[in-house]
Every structure is written in structure tokens, then in C-alpha cells.
């Protein structure tokens, strides 16, 4: 059952080939068997999952189920889930249970027709407060890449990708602030989609960098991603930055031919730094797309070399502010025996936050401080505008922009933990989309030395349907996305 696509699962449930309870139990059994090797889940909600599955079975029997009713999923532990701990990879929130659901949790899990009726298997491991590119900053320990247990799965949505790649969930939610969906998807053969900023509600998603954070999905195909993304998307009056605009029918768009599609290849994305093996996989994929009727055109995104430094001003600045609420006063970790208020703050935060989070809080505090704001934060905002304008110009002549997702394949655990800058450069190709607010996705396009390679598609604002269509057409002609790691088949 764990090799079936979302639409096959939906058909199977409707045809009574298996019940939602059986399907859920199958995944729970796989998690019990395989997750000790991966550490992809921080919480497994078996009892609740079986209850949700029973409700889905009842809805299926009564004929009022939704398209996704009874299909299991894993939730990244950054989304608040009422009654189930939401720790966000941090000791700070190790004891935190939200009294409310994130909007996307309601949308995906409430029973049809209010929600999609999906079944939550559990909460997935992640870099602490989503700060990391390798899932090594989690308080709950690193996640292993199912393709090679010595290697990282990428981050920050490392638990979500490992779980889906290993068949421990058919699909998972994820979030992307600088590449946290796309980079780990590329390192684990998955299709990961970060929608347009404002397409998916941020309410109840623990904030890292508010102007960059966007929820999305990691799945085994573009089609699977399309169905779940459809259910997550839409305007939310509780999120002022969500956009009040109808959601396109992503599923219906999948089968359109892509003849005449104009693909832009940014020359800056194919310059130095890209692994030769990865480059040849991507070049082969471009040929495949041309064979499907697309044309390719060189474009330039001249400000893209500034993406990483710009991001590492904007994101820590917002993070330093967003994480100020974790003070040990109302919830979360509180240091014991503090004698003064200042000591309470310093020790609660010093003990509750890990090294990478503390580093980013310090960077962010510095760039916002008096006398430095103009030189750093304001300057970064101006560069951000230039990056946005690069894309705007590119989309005047092409429909999509294509490039690598990562500089190479998954690296070894611990290989970059002592070198923050080397770690930050993992996101060199993914960050620009967050800064511009445009939708971007990663999809698999080959292997180098047995490790998955992904390519990235970036689209114009709200062009999700076309991107999923192109990815789906590519996946109809290729089978990289159908591969699964040895030991997790």
C-alpha cells in the first residue's frame, strides 16, 4: 500500500480494497519498524490517527467523504496541533501543547466538507525553529537520509522528506523559508513545492522569518503534491498576509501538454559551484523537457549572487524578533531557580535555544540595532527588491525558470556542522524565490553515485498550476520519482 500514489489510495479506499484504518495501521507499523533508523518522527499519534481513520471510513461508507478522506499524512512539527505537542525541534517547546490547530491542520484534517479528512500519523522532526539545512540542529537529534543512513536528508524539513521517501507517510507538510522544502526534497528524490508567499495561511505555523516563511508539501510526485497543496491553499482571514484570491484547480491542470512552454535558464545558476554530476542530470532533464515541446532560453538574474547575504540579514532579523516571545514567562522552557527577571530571561533562553538559533538571534539583533539598521536591514530590503525585479523581468520573456536545487547530493552527517557559512551556502539556489515571494519546487532528475539529484522550477506569482503541470508531464516521461531507497521498499 505504501507504494501507491495519492489518487490510487483514494481509489482503493472508495473501492473498499482497504479501509482507512487498515491503511493507517499499515503506516503505523512501518513507522514502528523503520523509524528508529531514521528518526523522522518526533511524535507518533497512533491512537488519534486510528480515530481519524475510523471517522474517514464512516464518511466513505456514508458517501460524504472528500477526495482525500482517510489518506494519511505527516505534519511537520512546526504546525500547531491542538492537544498534540508542537516542539518545533526545540528544547524551548519540548513541553508545549497548543490549544489550537494551525489553519492548514484544520484544512487538511477536519472531516469533509469542512476539511480534507486526512489522517495525521504524527509530527516530523525538523531543524530547530526551521533554522538549518541538514536537520542536524534539532533538539531531537539528526534525521538520517533513507538513501544513505550516514548522510543528512537536508533541512529544515528533514523529518518530512525522510518519512515520505522511506514510505512512512504517503505525503507530508513542510515549510520553506530559504529552501527548507526544496533542498531536502532534492536530497531524497521527492517532489517538494513551496507556493507563492500568501497562498497558504501561516496561522498556527511557528514563525521563523515571517516575510519568507511559506508552508507547502513534500510528496512522491507532482500529482500527489498537487492534490494536497490544493487542500492546503486559500485565503485565511486570520493571516493578514494571505492573499484573497481563488485557488486554481491544480489537479485539472496536470494533464495539459506543455508544447510551446518557454523555459528560462539563468546563467548565474549554472556557473561555478554546481557539482558536475548534478549538472549533467539537469542538462538531461532540460533535453527531456525540450522533447516534450518546451523551448529553452538563457535569462539573467544578475542580483542572484546577493541572495545568500541578503537572506542572512533579513531572516535572522525577523527571527530575532519572532523568537522574543520565548521568554520562559508564559509557556515553554523556564530556567529553574532564577533570582532576577534578567536571569530568568538569560537562562531560560540560553538553555532553551540551541547554538544555531542563538547565532541567528544574535545576528538578527545586531542588524536591527541602532546605527546598523540602515547599513544592514534597510540595504538588504533594497537588494531584495532588486532580486524581485530580476524575476519580474525574466517572466516577461519566459514562463518558468529552471535550475539546480542544490549544489550537489546529500552530504555526510557532521560534514558541515562546524562551518556555518558552508552550511548556509547549501541554500544558494533556493533562497531567491523566498526573497522574491514566487512559487518554486524541486523535482527529481537523476542520481549521482546512487544519491538523488533534484532540479528546481521557479514560476511567476500564483503560477502553481502551470509548474505542477510541467513537473507532472516530465514525470510521465521519466521514472526517477518512482525510485525508493533500499531497505525501505
Amino acid at each position: 500500500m505504501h507504494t501507491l500514489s495519492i489518487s490510487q489510495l483514494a481509489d482503493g479506499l472508495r473501492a473498499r480494497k482497504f479501509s482507512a484504518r487498515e491503511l493507517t495501521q499499515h503506516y503505523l507499523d512501518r513507522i514502528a519498524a523503520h523509524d528508529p533508523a531514521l528518526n523522522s518522527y518526533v511524535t507518533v499519534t497512533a491512537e488519534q490517527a486510528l480515530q481519524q481513520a475510523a471517522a474517514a471510513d464512516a464518511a466513505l461508507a456514508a458517501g460524504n467523504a472528500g477526495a482525500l478522506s482517510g489518506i494519511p499524512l505527516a505534519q511537520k512539527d512546526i504546525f500547531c496541533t491542538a492537544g498534540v505537542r508542537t516542539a518545533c525541534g526545540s528544547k524551548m517547546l519540548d513541553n508545549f501543547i497548543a490549544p489550537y490547530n494551525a489553519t492548514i491542520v484544520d484544512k487538511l484534517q477536519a472531516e469533509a466538507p469542512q476539511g480534507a479528512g486526512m489522517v495525521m500519523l504524527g509530527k516530523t522532526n525538523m531543524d530547530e525553529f526551521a533554522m538549518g539545512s541538514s536537520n542536524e540542529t534539532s533538539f531531537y537529534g539528526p534525521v538520517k537520509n533513507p538513501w544513505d543512513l550516514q548522510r543528512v536528508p537536508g533541512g529544515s524539513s528533514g523529518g518530512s522528506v525522510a518519512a515520505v521517501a522511506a514510505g512512512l507517510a504517503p505525503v507530508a507538510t513542510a515549510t520553506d523559508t530559504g529552501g527548507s522544502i526544496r533542498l531536502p526534497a532534492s536530497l531524497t528524490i521527492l517532489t517538494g513545492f513551496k507556493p507563492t508567499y500568501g497562498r497558504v495561511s501561516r496561522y498556527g505555523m511557528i514563525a521563523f522569518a515571517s516575510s519568507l516563511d511559506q508552508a507547502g508539501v513534500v510528496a512522491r510526485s507532482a500529482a500527489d503534491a498537487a492534490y494536497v497543496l490544493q487542500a492546503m491553499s486559500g485565503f485565511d482571514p486570520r493571516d493578514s498576509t494571505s492573499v484573497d484570491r481563488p485557488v486554481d484547480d491544480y489537479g485539472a491542470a496536470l494533464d495539459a501538454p506543455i508544447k510551446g512552454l518557454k523555459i528560462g535558464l539563468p546563467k548565474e545558476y549554472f556557473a561555478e559551484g554546481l557539482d558536475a554530476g548534478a549538472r549533467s542530470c539537469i542538462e538531461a532533464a532540460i533535453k527531456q523537457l525540450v522533447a516534450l515541446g518546451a523551448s529553452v532560453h538563457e535569462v539573467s538574474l544578475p542580483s542572484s549572487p546577493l541572495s545568500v547575504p541578503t537572506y542572512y540579514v533579513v531572516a535572522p532579523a525577523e527571527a530575532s524578533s519572532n523568537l522574543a516571545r520565548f521568554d520562559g514567562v508564559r509557556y515553554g522552557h523556564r530556567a529553574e531557580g532564577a533570582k532576577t527577571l534578567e536571569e530568568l530571561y538569560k537562562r531560560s533562553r540560553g538553555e532553551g535555544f540551541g547554538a544555531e538559533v542563538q547565532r541567528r538571534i544574535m545576528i538578527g539583533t545586531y542588524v536591527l540595532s541602532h546605527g546598523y539598521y540602515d547599513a544592514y536591514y534597510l540595504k538588504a530590503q533594497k537588494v531584495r527588491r532588486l532580486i524581485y525585479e530580476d524575476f519580474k523581468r525574466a517572466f516577461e520573456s519566459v514562463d518558468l525558470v529552471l535550475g539546480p536545487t542544490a549544489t550537489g547530493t546529500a552530504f555526510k552527517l557532521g560534514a558541515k556542522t562546524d562551518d556555518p557559512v558552508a552550511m548556509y551556502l547549501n541554500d544558494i539556489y533556493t533562497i531567491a524565490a523566498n526573497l522574491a515571494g514566487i512559487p518554486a519546487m524541486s523535482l527529481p532528475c537523476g542520481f549521482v553515485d546512487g544519491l538523488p539529484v533534484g532540479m528546481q522550477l521557479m514560476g511567476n506569482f500564483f503560477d502553481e498550476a502551470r509548474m505542477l503541470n510541467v513537473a507532472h508531464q516530465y514525470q510521465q516521461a521519466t521514472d526517477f520519482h518512482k525510485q525508493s531507497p533500499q531497505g525501505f521498499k
Partner: protein
Amino acid sequence: MANDSIHNSEWEAVIGLEVHCQLMTHSKIFSGAAIQYGAEPNTQACAIDLALPGVLPVLNEDAVKKAVTFGLSVDAHIAARCVFARKHYFYPDLPKGYQISQYELPIVYLGHLDIELEDGRTKTIGITRAHLEEDAGKSLHENFSNATGIDLNRAGTPLIEIVSEPDIRSASEAVAYLKKLHQLVVYLGVCDGNMQEGSFRCDANVSVRKVGAPKFGTRTETKNVNSFRYVEKAIEYEITRQIEVIEGGGAIRQETRLFDPSTGETRAMRSKEDANDYRYFPDPDLLPVICTQDYIEAIRASLPELPEAKKLRFEKDFGLSPYDAKTLTSSRELATYYEAVVKDSGADPKLCANWVSTDLLAVLNKSGKDISDSPISAAALAGLLQRIVDKTISGKIAKEVFEAMVAGEGNADDIIKAKGLVQITDESAIVKAIEDVMAKSPEQVAGYRSGKDKLFGFFVGQVMKATQGKANPDAVNRLLKEKLLG
């Protein structure tokens, strides 16, 4: 310390005020929680007010409307686009670790308010800006030993912070400005004006300089002075203190000070060096607020008549003195009450003004009540004044009826009837009373007739006494003169 050392000296004070004014919205500025004062601690704080992880603010449109209403009433600019910013500092009653405020782009800027000085002149005080922000919660240090309680009911209450230009030159000017501002925001229905509950709070920036000096002196900021009297005392204290420090060869430190009502003094709280670096930046959770010209004009069209315009209208339409007009327009409710009395009674507006501003206000002041809970309604007072107009009772008897009405004995007609106070207009009855008085007072009659005109009052008094005050005074005067002249 002599509070008037500023007078007769070469020193001049420079004062600017920051007023925090809670807006009378139904819910908080960024959440749906209620903002009723005095609720049990932490019963009016939702997940957003508690700053739980993942929650987001959504702007209350009514707060924007009230800020714009205020801005238009002080002839200020309304920003076509304004931006919320985060102001960071750590304190237990500030749940997010930052306050959502406005920094570079406030919603209201460059307005002014005219105040009347003691010598009758008018002075214009500039209003630099008024920005929207959220209030913090409260830290409760009483009732806890070795601990501090946090009440987040107030967290997220909408405020406008109104910042004046440093145009104020004395404590009395500061009070005049504050009173005018207070009257205005209450008039507009923007703020309930309750200073005890903290709905209207003032911080005073004070510096001194030699008269004619080109630059301002170093200023201090005295925080949270929450009554007009305290503002006056705190500023006077601060002016005197600063002059003494400088004249004693010292220098003023830029610092935040706290006013202690029990001593009437201010004391240093923190210096500029200890001040927080607030690390303001635009709040990425909130979009810029766009106020279109149509939106602004719609609010302008719905503005109530402002106190100044109402005062001028009362002078013109009702023939009131500037003093009476000012008294009667001191609050919107009082002005409405007065206008209802004029309309319902058909009496001379000046007579109505006397009754409302003298008799009624005396009763209210004595009982500490507000016009809104007056024991006598406008219609009831009008009913009394109608009986004066139609000469059923005299003005003097009306005072007696009024007292009975205050005591809750019913409406004017019932009281007049029950107490038999209907005025005697039957001239034969009055003539009889006059003749009785004259018969009993032959000496006074002789005195009056020999030229002691002052004795006339004696006779009026005696006649009124004999008729229990019910005789028509005009008739008494006329008939007395006839009889005394013989």
C-alpha cells in the same frame, strides 16, 4: 523648593506632551478579545494576546477609523499609507517581546490644537503625530510575596499616542492643552477619557533654557502622570528642579523620571544610557494600512460638531456669554442636555443656561454625578421651566420645586400641585396682603413715605412671606408702589 522660581526669572520652560489614549473599540487592536475594564485577570486575553507560537495579528478596522477621526478633528494629515512597526523590549507584561506600534510612518501627522490661556489669549499647540499601537499588560506587584502577577487583559488594547510639538511653555499651558485634548477625544467618542482607569495617560517632556536661547536644553521625560493636577505638579517640580540644578552649576541628564504623587516630586528612573535599543522594523505580519481619500472623506462627513464650533453656535444662536457657552459645551452630553431643555421648555435660552449651568451643575457636583446620570432629565427640567414661562410659579418658587425634584418627589407639576405652590395672580388677594402688612408696620410706611426708598424691599419681603412666596412678583411690585404712594 519654590514652585514659582520660573516667574520673574530669565528662564523659560519648553514642554512637549505624549498622551496615550485608549480607543473605545469593542475588541482589541489585533485580536477579537474584549477590552472591558476591571475583568478578572487574564480572562480577556486570547491566544494572540498571550503571544502563543504561530498566532498572527489582524488589524481592527475600527481602531483605524477612530485614529482617523481624531486626526481630522485636529486638522492633521492622514497618511495615505502607514506602517506598523515592532518595538522590542523584554518585560513580562509584553508577551511578544515587542509592542506593535508605528514608527516612521504614523497614521496621523502634523495637526494642531488651540488652547485658551489664562489671560484669554489663544495659543496654537502643534501636534507632531498620533500613531496607533497596542497597550501592554499589567504587572501586579501587590498581593504577591516574592512574585509578580501578570494580567494580560490590557495587552492589545488599542491606543493612539498623541505627541505634541514642544510648544508648551508652562505647567498651566500643559494642563490647558491636556484638558482640551481630553474634552476632544471624549467628544469624538474615540476615548472614554477615564483617567483613573488609565484610558488617558500623559508623559511630559520638560526642559528649561534661558529666554531667547537658540537651542533647547536637555530634557527629561516624566512618565505616566495620570491626573491634570499631577501633570501640573510634576511639571512645576521638574522646571524648578532643572533650574536649580543648572544654577547650581550642574547639568541636566537626559533621563526618564517618575512622578510620586505622595511627595509631589519626580525621581530618576533610568538614564538614556540604560535605555532600550528598541530595534524598530516594519512588522512583516501586517500589511501597510491604506487610507483612501474616499475613506477619509466619509469619516470627515460623520464627525460630530466639535466643542469649539458648538460653543460659537451657542453664543450666536442662544445669545449666551462666552463663559456660559464654554461651560455648557464642556461635554457633548451636557450640551445635548442643554439643547433639549431649550427646545422642550420654549423658555429664554439664557434662563435655561442659568438653570443648567448653575442649579443643575451645582447638584451634580455636590453628588459627584455626571450629566448622564443626572437625577433630573432634560425633559423634567424643561417641564419646570415651562411653569415659569406660563407664570404658574415664580422663579423663586421654581427653586423650591427644583429641590423637591432633586429629592425625587416627582415632576414639576405634581410637586406644584401637592404643595399648593401655584402663583397668586388674583390682585385682590395681593392687595389684601399688602394692606395687612402696611397696617402692621406703620413706622416703616412712614419711613418709606419720608424718602427711605430702601424700605421698599422690606415690604416686598413681608408680602411674599405672607403669601408663602406664591404672589406674582411683578404684581406685588406694582401694587405695593401704588399703595405706598397712597
